[in-house]
């Protein structure tokens, strides 16, 4: 499909702007001539062309509203429409972050209550809503770890992560100047307690664990893990990406975690927007509350205010207060569900995952064959015997009209296929997906070529606008912008 730049024609415009109603001065009198730009090559297109262009593009994009999106670790659940409408209320959408606090009582009240609800759900004592995404939440959490030990004048330089962890965990540790130590999982797919004990010493500031972990397994020895960490003076961080598994069932705070980040765009139903905006609030136990980013929200009787008087705070990690528009949607979701609703989310998410896992395990290798939580990880290694890679299976699923699961993650499972159905899928859809997966397993045996050449574009009877794209060529000779724009005066 053409780029918008290729549709440009001199003299067209997609917006009408008013005449200047104040007496105009010559631009050169206001801005020094050498500060003015000589050209601005933006495309010239009419409103209707813009609308058609992006509408057409939207039809070439797969979302949760299009169909099943079993992307493991991403919790692609349905995004309630009423929340989108609520976020558009003028009081939410059109309030200035620096307007007088007296004019922002609704926003502050909402944030205050959202913090309280998240604290109750996770069993933590305090929350910040400032981080814009899970990875920024991790960074914020580790900054607090660092500040906490600096205040105690303890020099600790290492962070322990699991070999099944998200890549953001060690990357966040590096951003905080920590060295990451990776410990191996045991044959049950969980933390190897002996290995952990060996790695743990007084240099370790923090252990980062995902629970349930990225294999979809609950860390059964979590109480022992947090106890031995605390005994060595280390803190324990929970990557809360998988919180959907035990909402209202169990709480990370009770497990001994000191810090957790949540992904409002996963667990709490705010749309992921094709890669953001997200929101990654961080909750902490009492001892870390003084280090939370500032400002925090204070309530005195029925008046809410922003409190910047936080001498131990790590500071700010984002301008203003975080992705407020996302918080509005998550808060609305929590208010719609209530405690029973939340528990129902976890129960049905786990039920659906176990159902799909059992339906698929005789067709795909299941490395850890035990009750899973909200997701499970298969391996495509049986199919590899016929030369069919997991990537081929993922692409073939697009031909069947499904989004692919997460693939090649976690790194400890070869040819990994990570499936997270979520609670918002009806049983019939799970059955259809299972049938597709089973048919693909059959194809891999009998007609591997059709899998290896997937996806098949619409011109060949498939569903995607293009066939499999060449990732190697893209990286070898990067073309990251439309270059012709430079050459012509449009």
């Amino acid at each position, binding site marked *: 499909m053409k780029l918008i730049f290729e549709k440009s024609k001199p003299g067209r415009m997609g917006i009408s702007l008013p005449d200047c109603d104040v007496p105009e001065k010559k631009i050169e009198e206001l801005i020094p001539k050498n500060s003015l730009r000589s050209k601005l090559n933006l495309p010239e297109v009419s409103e209707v062309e813009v609308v058609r262009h992006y509408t057409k593009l939207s039809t070439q994009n797969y979302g949760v509203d299009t169909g099943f999106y079993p992307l493991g670790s991403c919790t692609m659940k349905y995004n309630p429409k009423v929340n989108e409408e609520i976020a558009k209320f003028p009081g939410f959408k059109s309030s200035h*972050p620096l307007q007088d606090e007296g004019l922002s009582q609704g926003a502050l009240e909402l944030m205050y209550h959202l913090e309280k609800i998240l604290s109750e759900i996770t069993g933590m004592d305090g929350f910040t809503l400032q981080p814009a995404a899970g990875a920024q939440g991790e960074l914020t959490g580790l900054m607090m770890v660092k500040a906490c030990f600096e205040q105690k004048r303890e020099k600790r330089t290492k962070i322990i992560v699991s070999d099944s962890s998200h890549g953001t965990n060690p990357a966040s540790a590096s951003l905080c100047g920590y060295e990451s130590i990776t410990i191996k999982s045991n044959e049950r797919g969980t933390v190897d307690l002996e290995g952990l004990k060996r790695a743990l010493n007084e240099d370790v500031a923090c252990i980062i664990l995902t629970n349930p972990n990225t294999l979809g397994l609950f860390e059964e020895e979590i109480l022992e893990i947090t106890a031995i960490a605390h005994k060595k003076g280390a803190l324990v961080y929970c990557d809360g990406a998988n919180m959907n598994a035990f909402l209202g069932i169990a709480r990370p705070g009770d497990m001994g975690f000191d810090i957790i980040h949540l992904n409002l765009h996963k667990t709490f139903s705010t749309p992921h927007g094709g890669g953001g905006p997200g929101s990654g609030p961080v909750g902490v136990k009492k001892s870390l509350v003084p280090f939370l980013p500032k400002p925090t929200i204070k309530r005195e009787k029925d008046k809410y205010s922003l409190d910047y008087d936080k001498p131990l705070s790590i500071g700010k990690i984002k301008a203003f207060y975080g992705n407020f528009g996302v918080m509005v949607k998550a808060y609305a979701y929590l208010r719609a569900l209530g405690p029973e609703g939340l528990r129902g989310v976890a129960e049905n998410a786990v039920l659906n995952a176990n159902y799909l896992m059992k339906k698929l395990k005789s067709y795909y290798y299941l490395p850890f064959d035990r009750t899973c939580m909200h997701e499970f990880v298969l391996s495509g290694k049986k199919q590899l015997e016929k030369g069919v890679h997991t990537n081929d299976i993922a692409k073939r699923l697009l031909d069947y009209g499904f989004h692919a699961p997460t693939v090649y993650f976690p790194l400890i499972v070869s040819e990994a296929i990570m499936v997270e159905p979520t*609670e918002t899928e009806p049983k019939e859809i799970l059955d259809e997906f299972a049938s597709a997966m089973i048919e693909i397993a059959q194809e891999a045996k009998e007609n591997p070529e059709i899998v290896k050449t997937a996806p098949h574009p619409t011109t060949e009877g498939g569903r*995607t606008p293009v066939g499999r794209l060449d990732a190697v060529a893209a990286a070898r000779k990067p073309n990251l912008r439309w270059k012709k724009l430079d050459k012509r005066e449009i």
Partner: protein
Amino acid sequence: MRFIPNTDQDRKEILEFLGIKSIKELFKNIPEELLLKKNLKIPKGFSEIELVREMRFLSEKNADLEHYSCFLGAGAYHHFIPAIIPHLMGRSEFYTSYTPYQPEASQGLLQTIYEFQTLICELTGMDVANASMYDGASALAEAMIMAFHITGRKEVIISRTIHPEYREVVKTYAQAKNLKIIEIEYENGITSLEELKRKVSDKTAAVLIQNPNFFGSLEDIKEIERIAHKNKSLFIVAIVEPTSLGLLKPPGELGADIVVGEGQSFGNPISFGGPYLGFMATKDKYMRKLPGRLVGATKDSKGRRGYILTLQAREQHIRREKATSNICTNEALCALAATIYLVSLGKEGLRRVAELSLQKAHYAFEKIKEIDEFEAAFASPFYNEFIVECRDAQGVNRVLLKEKIIGPLELEKYYPELKNHLLFCATEMNSKEEIDGLVNILRKIK
């Protein structure tokens, strides 16, 4: 539960298939002592009617710019948002998708990101731009870390005319990474060149400035660039009010090595401070040091053009602790709004928005400084924000609020030495009538 399709019958069938009696058995791996015995203590669930009522009530406790006039900017700008933007953003194929890991099923979004990258390069005069950052402030902090990775130097020079919240974010990141921050004072509303010359050294990884700066003034970019590059430091420019690029020379033409900024002005609602979008662009030679997602053009087996996430060897999911950054989710949907905004306006439209903002701010400035009690603070040229000194800044805002005007920023909040200094902002949204009304009220304040 309206978001959970499983019926009791479905659950029964699934349990039978699994060979278990109750859902409880699925949680048997969780130690008994951890299982909650009671409901969480959170408010009970609402029907949609109750929810909308409650949320509307809460929203109405906020003042909003649809019912108030606004002369406040300071990093969050009230610009016009054409109707097609919310309309197209409502296409749920876009907003309900994840990061485009399966490119063949995500061509729509990938192409819009490629268009966004192209637009940011054109506006900033740089070679390569990423898919977006969290916001302008964290983009500036990431640019600082990128400069550290490129130069290996551990000192960073930052002008005090940079948005105070941006400086705070930069400091937070610097502290984590053990980088040293050196602040440079301002003179007559712009960065002090004398002090800058004194403080830049061969330890300086980068010089960070904002243009137009937090006071609205235009910096002497060419001179700052010379000072930075003389010491082989990188020169980083932050653009917080990006409509200014409709008129101003792109930083890339002035020698910037990294340009970052806040894209909120481009079609994103002001939304109490977020979600906004950071942008980040650099020269070709630093492409592989960029943090964040990059979309590249490529082909399928039949030679059809398509788009794909690329150069992922920089990123956390491949590189883990050696990645250029930990960023993963960014602000794709906000970048889509910015893209639609920029292509709708086109070259004439963006220039027009910039001219209107410039003219209105200067009109307001001329009128306000005619009043005896108000005096211009600085003489530097400015874009759409300016500072005046008055007798009682708080008093001014108290009066304005009574007239349903969200008034200027009281600078003392961030600059103790600027007591009774007010930072005004105007955009195309402020009519002459509104500005005259503001001036009339100010004139009556004694």
